[in-house]
């Protein structure tokens, strides 16, 4: 009976994530991306196409903004108007940030996008009716809509190419929103294997496609609540906490933060932290040599 269910689990159904308590246990998948290592080579992006059956939309549709790259490499220039970008460009791999308090989730009319118990912002394609509200409300604009029926009518996968499709990932038809899933099909396999063996997933059991490809190993993916995981250690070392909208280290020194000036500034940050989506992807600031 739902009312008794409601009352029995009252404290559970009134939890606010992630600020009320430890958000997820035993898994909370998270990422860290070292922008100083990232060279902007696009290998991650292509690997994502290969792993997740992304549609290649072609020149004309790309022009109309219909590209489907779940992971896009953004290239930023200095904004100080120098003649040449003599400290290079800034590359940023941007994909779904798997926010803990994702703006996209609340607004979906049919609940096609939810937060999984292990902290991934899941997208259920077959539930999606294509209102696109999630993308409208996404601060990062990392959701991609199937404007056309790529699997069939658009001949994106002609006869032989379709054999490359990953059977673990559903092919999306027209009118469906899609996005980076942290390679949830790989996560599921790792979790199932671990369950079969009566253990938890160890760090390194599961890699996302982008992480696996990344030639500079700039991407790390793992379980944020596992103290053994690289991601946990990195977040710890950078003093980035999942449930903060402003990190303690970024506050003034008198409030316990690290001084923003001087040696020892920590590089970890999350994009648009202040909007309070509590993203699960930590970026490490790019470093540029001061002596040259």
């Amino acid at each position, binding site marked *: 009976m739902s009312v008794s269910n409601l009352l029995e689990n009252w404290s559970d159904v009134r939890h606010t994530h992630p600020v009320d308590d430890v958000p997820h246990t035993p898994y909370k998948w998270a990422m860290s991306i070292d922008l100083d*290592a990232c060279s902007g080579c*696009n290998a991650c992006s292509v690997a994502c196409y290969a792993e997740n059956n992304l549609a*290649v939309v072609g020149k004309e549709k790309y022009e109309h903004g219909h590209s489907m790259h779940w992971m896009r490499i953004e*290239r930023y220039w200095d*904004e100080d108007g120098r003649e040449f970008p003599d400290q290079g*460009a800034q590359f940023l791999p941007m994909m779904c940030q798997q926010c803990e308090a994702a703006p996209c989730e609340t607004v979906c009319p049919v609940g096609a996008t939810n937060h999984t118990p292990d902290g991934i912002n899941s997208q259920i394609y077959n539930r999606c009716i294509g209102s696109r509200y999630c993308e409208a409300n996404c601060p990062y604009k990392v959701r991609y809509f199937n404007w056309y029926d790529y699997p069939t009518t658009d001949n994106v996968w*002609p006869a032989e190419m379709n054999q*490359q499709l990953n059977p673990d990932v559903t092919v999306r038809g027209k009118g469906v929103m899609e996005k980076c899933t942290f390679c949830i099909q790989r996560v599921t396999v790792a979790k199932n294997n671990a369950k079969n063996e009566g253990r938890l997933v160890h760090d390194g059991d599961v890699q996302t496609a982008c992480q696996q490809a990344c030639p500079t190993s700039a991407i790390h993916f793992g379980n944020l609540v596992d103290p053994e995981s690289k991601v946990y250690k990195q977040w710890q070392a950078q003093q980035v906490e999942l449930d903060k909208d402003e990190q303690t280290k970024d506050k003034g020194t008198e409030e316990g933060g690290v001084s923003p000036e001087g040696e020892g500034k920590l*590089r970890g940050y999350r994009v648009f932290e202040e909007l309070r989506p509590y993203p699960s992807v930590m970026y490490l600031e790019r470093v540029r040599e001061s002596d040259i």
Partner: protein
Amino acid sequence: MNSGSVKHLAGQPFDRRDFLKVLGWSGAAVALSGCGNGSVEDGRETVVSYVEATDYMIPSISVYFNSTCAQCDAGCNITGRIREGRVLKLEGNPDSAINRGKTCGLGQAGVQHHYNPDRVREPLLRSGNSGEAITWEKAYALIAEKLNGVKGEEIAFLSGGVSGHLKVLLGNYLDSIGSKNHFVYEAIAPAVVRAANKKSYGVEMPRFNINKAKVVLSFGADFLGAWVSPVHFSQQYAQFRKGVNGQRGVLIQVESKMTLTGANADRWLVVRPGTEGILALGIIHALGAAGLALSGDVAAAVKGYDKARVSADTGVSVEQIDKIAAILKARTPSLVLAGSAAEGYAHGSQNAAAINLLNQVLGNVGKTVEAAAVVPFPQMTPTTGNTAALKTMNNGLAAGKFKVLFSYATNPVFTAPGAMKFKDNMARAGFKVAFAHYLDETALQADLVLPLDSALEDWGTQVPEYMAEGAQINIQQPLMEKLHANTDGKGTRGMGDILLALIKQRRADDYRKYDDYYAYLRAAVLQNKGALGGGVADDETFWNETLSKGIIKLAGATHALSGKASVAGLSLPAPAAIDAQYPLQLIPSVNASLRDGRHTNQPWLQESPDPLTTIVWDSWVEIHPKKAAELGIVEGDIVEVSGKNGSIKAQAYLFPGIHPDAVSIPLGRGHEALGRYAQGYGVNPFQILDAVYDKETGELALHETRVKVSKIGKRVIVVKDEGFAGGKQMGKKIAVRVSSDKVKLSGEV
């Protein structure tokens, strides 16, 4: 889902060679019905089942097999994920010293090469302007017939870089037909640098230990993009950035057009095109001035290159030269690299020599420049080549010397400079055979096109030119059954099988014992089991282990490096004066994905944005905003880039990372053939290259074309990923940069 034809598997003795067949369900079609409701009706679909199964044949469980990536020559070892008999994805092989489990975008797209719908599926014989499908028997017979009575020197074999047993077999075949005319042509190859390295260090390709260097000064070497072994260098780069004891490596990139590596540099220095060598000598001079002991001849050689002059010649400020000298002196070891931007001039060899000299002066040789291990089988080491070889052959063709021409793994009709008129000359050969995956521009000119297996369905061995750590021989093995195996004597075949069949026409007795290339390969490997580290293992075990690893690692001796700085013959011309008629230098840029254009038909690569401009599916002309303003050009203007050898029209893209006196067009696009994803997208700058050659090596000076740029009055929307904000963060904290003195990397995990 898994419906489709089912391979019967019974009655065959199982060995590793057959594992693909046993995997079964070959070519099982995948459902594209996706997330719609689909038809869910009991009894509508057929369950795919085996006749016989083995232990590891479990539906929905992937198996992984190792092979070698053939998308470029770097020789990365890969692992293919195979499910239900289809290869789905390629990953790096973690045991590889070269790529350590990593891949680049190009490598990822290997599956699209394999599944490409535009692959040639049967031998085609020219009849008029179209091809007629013939059987292999007929094709072989035809070759035998055409070779009959033709003298050895009248046969030319043009190929891309070859190595391993294929090279051996090819050599034997050429031997059997009496030809010595094997021309190796790779359109984009560091040929001048190889020659300069040979002179400076004694080896063509030493090992560069970027990870051990504290400063990397790169003269246009795009080692993160397309240079030599980018995945390997990328990993080294990542270590270099983390540094030893938290001292982060410093990357300084000197070039006229920003490459991906330049975009990642701590300091990107734009130089006047062609003055890289001058700057190198200037730095040596500055080092000397800063107190670094220079040997007498070096000091003498750089005497004239004081900062003021170098600064005036190159456009790099005096302070910057000082800073570079200071950091090079303070932080050792360092590493200086000469890349394609330095070598692409008529004085490219001199540039490279000057740059290598800087390495020697800094004492890096032996520290960050080390001798690479070599495979103890010289007959298998890669044969490399560049335009000089093509030029020789082209001259031969023009002179009508060659009656029969074979072409394999290279596409000179597309990549040869227009001035060579290769296409016309090729027509002079009486009988042209192309071994091809696609009907590319060269194959279209051939009389006989022989379809090749993709790298994911063919056997082979490969020896990488750049050895990362120790020597290795890479195994290439099929990851699935042939996609276009045709039972009626058509279908695709492996290059090794073809060569074996051809050689059997001449030396049947010697090769009778090899049923196919696989047998040949197996025998050849087992023959040298001891040398290959087989020890006492029995043949079967060793062979299976070798295949399962996908790599044969060898201790491998190293050549000694000659570390002595030599300035003999080092003379650099003053920067060329600006040509009034053609005031701009054309820099054909090499995109890490498309390279010389052989991969353009892989749609992932077409749609993968160029890292710097984010443009997709098209070519563009990079112009510095200042120059563009001068010429009244805005983004999207169609401009005509014309030089002495013709002109091409492409959209303009205003790019801050280029010298104002240069324009740049990426190579690889502008195909007239090759397939649906390549044809008709972009322009081909190879067409308008001037035939200027490096004075010492005779290789094409890729950057020596001078052009003028003019608007034609049309404007298009540039199709790119970058939005309206044009790569600005608009004051938002998105991609953040911090100065190295503010952070302590040693505290990081």
